[in-house]
């Protein structure tokens, strides 16, 4: 189970995304605009694992602002950008700045909700992998630290 925030100004859309992700067993919060989303992100404890946000809401840059807030809160939070017609360029810009992926809302013949759910799963895995790696690195670091004083002394003695 992951903690997810869905941000979209179209009420029905965010509710349906929430339902879809809840079916996969996640805990989902919702925000109707950029400001609310940014507040919820900064207050979340622990931080959200994945954030799904619409690109254009209050402004053309809403998605980007949500992304910034998310990365500020937790650099490893995965952000997926949703775009309607004509905003792919913005979404790509978001990816350059650290978003995990983007999903176009209107792809003919594609169940975008399923597509989104799939990407969310992969994002969760990605986050899990990264956190795991970090965890291992920390362990390794601890191990190194634990051995360090001894070995350095040995070295000193040798010279």
């Amino acid at each position, binding site marked *: 189970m992951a903690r997810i925030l869905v941000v979209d100004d*179209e009420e029905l*859309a965010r509710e*349906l995304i929430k339902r879809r992700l809840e079916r996969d067993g996640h805990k989902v919060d919702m925000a109707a605009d950029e400001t609310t989303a940014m507040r919820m992100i900064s207050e979340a404890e622990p931080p959200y694992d994945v954030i799904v946000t619409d690109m254009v809401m209050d402004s053309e840059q809403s998605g980007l602002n949500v992304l910034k807030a998310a990365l500020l809160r937790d650099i490893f939070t995965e952000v997926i950008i949703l775009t*309607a017609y*004509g905003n792919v360029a913005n979404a790509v810009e978001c990816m350059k700045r650290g978003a995990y992926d983007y999903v176009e*809302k209107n792809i003919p013949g594609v169940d975008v909700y399923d597509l989104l759910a799939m990407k969310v799963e992969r994002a969760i895995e990605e986050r899990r992998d990264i956190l795991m790696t970090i965890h291992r690195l920390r362990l390794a670091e601890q191990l190194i630290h634990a051995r360090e004083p001894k070995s350095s002394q040995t070295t000193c003695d040798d010279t």
Partner: protein
Amino acid sequence: MELGTDQEDAFGSGQISGEALGKANGSVDYTESTIGTIASVLSLHSVSRILNAFPNIEELMRVALEEALKISRGKHGFIALVNYHTGELTIGWVVGPGWTEEKRSTKFKLTREPGKGIEGYVALTGKPYLSGDLESDPHHYPLFEDSLSRMVVPLKERSGKTIGILSVSSDRYNAFDEKDLRIMQALADIAALAMSSADYHAREQKLIELGMELASQTDIDALLDKVVSTAIEILQADDCSLFLIEDGSKLILKASKGALKEHVGKAVYEIGEGLTGWVALNGEPIRLSDVRSDPRWRGRYTEVPVDEIGAFLAVPIMGRQSCKGVLRAIRKRPPDASYSNPFTPEDQNLLYMLASQVGAALDRVELQERLIEVERMAALGEMSARAAHMLGNKLFALKGALKELRIAQVTPGEERERLYAAIDGLIREMEELLQEFRYFVKSARVDRNPVELVLLLSEFVRQISHSTGEVSVHFETHLDEAWIEGDAERLKRCVGELIENAAHFTPQGGIITVSIEPSTHGEVMITVSDTGKGIPDEDKEKIFEPFYSTRAQGLGLGLAIVKSIVQAHGGTIEECGRYGEGAKFVITIPAAKLLHR
């Protein structure tokens, strides 16, 4: 007379220096000694009186005549002016005893024919004439029984064109000599100068008036019509036609007054074809007396039968970059074949000036149209992007909702109903978006018919008042009928949008008032005011811009559509309420007819 010379300035200020006078008279044949003679004979006082009275043509003519009579010790004198259209001299100012109404209304024909008057003969030849024994003079016409001597001098413009004559007679034989004749000619020159200056001012005034109209008018056809009338007036032409280049290769008749009027829009010259086509092709004027002798002449469309054309003048209408058309004028052949009435270089300059004003006006209108088109295209592009985005979002939700329904067939009925309602709502929103889009695209196109606003809007307000909820809508007018040329459906939509807007921003129990009143300029004013908060000053302009909206729904095109429709009716709209006291939208549209109660 050319524009921008020293004399123009001197005349313009109502004063004239000796230098300017000498220069203006430069083309007339008299010598230093003549000036000396005038100075010696005319008292300095009289000269200065004449000069000071310069702006007043009537006064000047009277003084000139009195001086003429005094100096020459003549008995009767008069100044008559040439009318080249009728080929006659008309008496304008007289001096001496015994002038009856009948004598004053005598007309002299411009002719060499004996016995028709020395005056007409002088006007025709342009040469001074002295007769010491009228009884044996072949041209003499006895205006007064006791006239025995007469001298007649022409009043000539700087171009050499005779505009009138000064005639003095005496009841003595051989009353006048050469010296008298020269003095008369000097007086006549002053009079002619004053005449052409006054005439020049009148023409200049006409040009300025037209220039102002050209700068403010937007109805091109009405404007071109006005140009043609003005050209006829200032050139004293018999007709004038205006052709504009369309599709880069054709000259289309746009305005004319006489026989060609019914061919407006139909008469077409290829560029290069005929005199008119030549002017358009070469960008240079043509000035002719006998059109048929010119090899370029085709005679496809003429204002009067070719035989009757006595003078032809055509100038190009130059725009900033290219020739935009041709303005041409004609004068009919005078009734008497012994004289002609050609267009002068000065006429050509005047018409050229007029044409360049038209060119500038056309440039301006073109630029404006292009600008509006560019703005419109930009707005359309922006709007398409927005509409696509909004529709995309709604479709996304719609798709999700349908899927949810399919999966959730097991879910309780209540849940299903909620989804169905949400889908209905989405579909309606999408339809509204598409409708708004369509209205905006079409708002500049209106189908204009006579519309009576009082009945139309009172009925419309009655209908709409059922749908404004807790806000009431009132209709007020002091008019019985207010007719305009307009599109009833679009106008209703305008007022509907304003009412709907007002209802949205007016608290419960508020009042919306729709009124129709005449404006101070005879237009009709439709006002929609409410008791809401009103619009802050800084937003008063912005609210009419596309995509400006303080409401969550729609594309924000409502007021932009209203403005577009009003403008398509040749009207204006502004919000002139005071912030805090409610909004007040005022639409002003040109009225066809207003009936007061």
